[in-house]
């Protein structure tokens, strides 16, 4: 996924339903701290420079609103609402228990909880569940054709969304059962049900993007009003009763407001002055030191499972030449990129596609000064020799980056490095609203760009398969998330092998993903992995009970303002 509020995330596949189920067995019911009613009440004030687009949970693909959906919507299953690593675990939510999965992995049987109501007072029924998944196709959900088409009838819904019916979902109102029939086993099916796209909505919801009109949900809060130019207001859902604190705990503030339109600088000042409680946007670099020293107790830093990287277009000059790509890998100083991101306390240099502590990650550094597996620095001599050997010396290269300060600074640095190894490089800074789609579209002939990828859920395939497989390279499309355009059938076959292995043997599957990571970097070098970032949350001094999910980040509804 892309963190940027304005940009759609993309696709994904593969992980481990069986391993999720196994984890759930050990973590089910491991809810957060007990609810302390003394802290309930008040208004939590959030700030963001801009709104996150449509409020429709089946269309919106931004972290900005996925964070808020945690308190407003529920799926059959969800990621556990606790801090730390257990927040990656999938637990039953509107379903009474984790599903019964057939031996061949093709049938998932859920039982829907009884007595739960939407925020408009309407009871949740199994018909709502079926209608929800059909609506996913009707509203052109970004991942309908890559995640949910595994449901029997899905491919037909992709081709004719307006008349979508899913024979692969069989519901029984008497027993409250919901059975999913899949076309093939999918190790990540439960993860895909647990993200907000899988939120159960009333069957009566119109089958088109609802934009700024709130759709009733089942969470502890409901969206009371939304004006993308000014503010978004969440209030308590009067029909909500806790059925599983691990899935949907009771929230603390009575009202949660997110206001839009200030600059980040003034947002920081507002939080410092206690006029607001949290800002969505990254802290500006010139305020980091002040905030982190003067308000140290209110600053929360978390390592993210994400990559900042430079995808190189393997299909056009000069980077259609392996030696040229390897040269750039040797030349870029990842420590310099870390410095430009805010220093070693806010980012860690990386050489691999899979972030550290992520399933499948293996410590390795193919392009390094020396032979160690930990990054030691650039090797400019080797880089210059490779450029010369590649026959691409003196070619023009345009580096595309976003125009915000951090991206533009790193972009300028990359231009300097490319010039130093013999290219004629220039920077093309673009608005963050368009850059992500621009660099994906092969019609724009982007040679090298700067971008980021944040996990959708904890699975190696969400990086390697999503970002580097043939299936996700679409010529001429602005939604071609395989930005480097790498398509190597032998590597694709190995990715498929790893996905299949994840269903039966996750350990072996993850080992294979790790091997693939190193193999891709050494044989293809389609990227320059730069660093793994950290997230800095800055809260006001009146806020308490800060909790952080590795999946959806800070739980806004769990903050105390009293």
């Amino acid at each position: 996924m892309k963190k940027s509020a304005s940009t759609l995330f993309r696709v994904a596949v593969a992980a481990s339903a069986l391993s999720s189920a196994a984890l759930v067995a050990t973590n089910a019911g491991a809810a957060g701290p007990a609810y302390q009613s003394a802290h309930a009440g008040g208004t939590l004030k959030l700030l963001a420079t801009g709104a996150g687009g449509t409020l429709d949970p089946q269309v919106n693909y931004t972290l900005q609103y996925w964070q808020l959906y945690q308190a407003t919507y529920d799926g059959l299953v969800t990621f556990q609402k606790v801090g730390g690593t257990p927040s990656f675990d999938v637990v039953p939510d509107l379903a009474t228990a984790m599903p019964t999965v057939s031996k061949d992995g093709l049938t998932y049987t859920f039982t829907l909880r009884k007595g739960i109501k939407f925020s408009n007072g309407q009871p949740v029924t199994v018909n709502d569940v079926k209608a929800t998944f059909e609506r996913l196709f009707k509203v052109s959900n970004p991942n309908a054709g890559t995640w949910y088409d595994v449901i029997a009838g899905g491919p037909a819904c992709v081709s004719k969304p307006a008349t979508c019916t899913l024979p692969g979902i069989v519901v029984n109102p008497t027993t409250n059962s919901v059975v999913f029939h899949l076309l093939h086993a999918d190790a990540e099916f439960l993860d895909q049900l647990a993200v907000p796209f899988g939120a159960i909505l009333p069957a009566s919801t119109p089958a088109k993007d609802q934009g700024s009109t709130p759709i009733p949900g089942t969470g502890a809060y409901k969206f009371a009003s939304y004006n993308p130019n000014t503010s978004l207001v969440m209030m308590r859902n009067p029909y909500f009763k806790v059925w599983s604190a691990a899935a949907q705990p009771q929230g603390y503030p009575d009202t949660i407001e997110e206001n839009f339109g200030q600059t980040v600088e003034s947002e920081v000042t507002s939080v410092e002055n206690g006029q607001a409680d949290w800002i969505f946007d990254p802290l500006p670099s010139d305020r980091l030191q002040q905030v982190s020293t003067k308000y140290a107790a209110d600053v929360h830093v978390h390592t993210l499972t994400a990559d900042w990287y430079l995808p190189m277009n393997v299909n056009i000059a000069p980077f259609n030449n392996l030696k040229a790509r390897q040269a750039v890998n040797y030349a870029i100083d990842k420590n310099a990129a870390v410095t430009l991101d805010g220093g070693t306390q806010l980012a860690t240099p990386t050489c691999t596609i899979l972030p550290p502590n992520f399933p499948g990650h293996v410590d390795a550094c193919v392009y390094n000064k020396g032979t160690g597996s930990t990054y030691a620095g650039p090797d400019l001599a080797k880089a210059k020799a490779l450029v010369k050997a590649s026959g691409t010396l003196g070619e023009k290269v345009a580096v595309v980056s976003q125009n915000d300060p951090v991206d533009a600074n790193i972009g300028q640095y990359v231009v300097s490095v490319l010039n130093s190894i013999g290219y004629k490089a220039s920077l093309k800074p673009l608005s963050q609203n368009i850059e992500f789609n621009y660099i994906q579209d092969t019609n724009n002939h982007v040679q090298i760009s700067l971008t980021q990828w944040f996990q959708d859920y904890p699975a190696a395939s969400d990086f390697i398969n999503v970002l580097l497989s043939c299936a996700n390279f679409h010529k001429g499309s602005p939604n071609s998330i395989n930005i480097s355009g790498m398509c190597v059938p032998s590597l694709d076959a190995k990715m498929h092998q790893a996905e299949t292995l994840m269903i039966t043997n996750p350990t072996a599957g993850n080992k294979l993903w790790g091997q693939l990571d190193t193999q891709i970097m050494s044989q293809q070098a389609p990227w320059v992995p730069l660093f793994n970032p950290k997230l800095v949350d800055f809260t006001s001094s009146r806020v308490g009970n800060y909790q952080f999910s590795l999946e959806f980040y800070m739980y806004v509804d769990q903050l105390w303002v009293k």
Partner: protein
Amino acid sequence: MTSSTSTTSSTTTTVRGSESPWRSSLRQLRRNRASMAALGLLVFVAVASLLAPVYAHLVAHVNPFPANVQGTIRLGGKTVSVLQPSSVGFGVTPIGPTWNFSTYFLGADPQGRDVFARLLYGGRISLLISFSAAVICCVIAAILGMAGGYFGGAIDWVVSRVFDIVWAFPVYLLAICLSVILLTSGLNIAFVHIAPGSLLLPILIIASVYIPYVGRPVRGIVMTLREREFIQAAVGSGASDWRILRKEIWPNVAPTVMVFFPMMVAFNMLTESALSFLGVGVQPPNATWGTISNDGLQLLYTRPWVSIAPGICIVLTCAALNVLGDGARDAFDPKAKLRGGA
């Protein structure tokens, strides 16, 4: 030069009957102390900017264009990083002004480059763009204004409508729109190909948005002149249009254009700075005072000099240009037509 004595210069020839109006105006300009001080400041800025490579290579020993993220310098006998990690808390801060003329006098920017060296190089490009755009603007505006005012009819209608259309847009909005479009693709019209990063783009954009501001007054003056006796006499004597425009009209229009010129340079400098500050003007790693201000925006709290220094340069240069423009108007346009006078 019959025509000029009959118009603008008639009042300026009183001191010495034999002195040409141009010489008289220049003498009057030289007597204006404020204008001369402004001219001195402009010359100083221009010379300092021209000497940028000398300063960078021989005094500061820096290359102000490539990133210097991991660079170090000797300061007080110690080797320190140009971008310094915070000793407490988070973040990385460029070194501040050393006030040592030979080492990062005004500190470093977010890329670790010497701000003072970039400021000098930035002055070269800012002045180059401002002057070039002013020259192009004044030349085209004078040609269009003279053609429209003299020939009238269809030519005047076309010229006037073009001026109206360009004038209908707020200058900065039009400049930003043109810049955004041309920034990514460059200019490709017939045989004219200008690369996206070329300095010619901001020069042409800025020149084109200000053409009506000079062209309209020129057209008005020419329309008035056209009815004057000396023009009618020239027409009656069989002089060609080209000769009348060159020998009779232009000498009377030239003082107006000269008065406009310094003001246009000032306007152009402000526009270039604004575009570069917004990221749609000159592109990195090239430096102008606008791009340096933009670089400093992210350091306003910790290293304000990165933004303040180019701001001061812009203010002083524009103020000097305006004072010089006032002096030129007093000398060349004593009836103050451009102030809405007689």
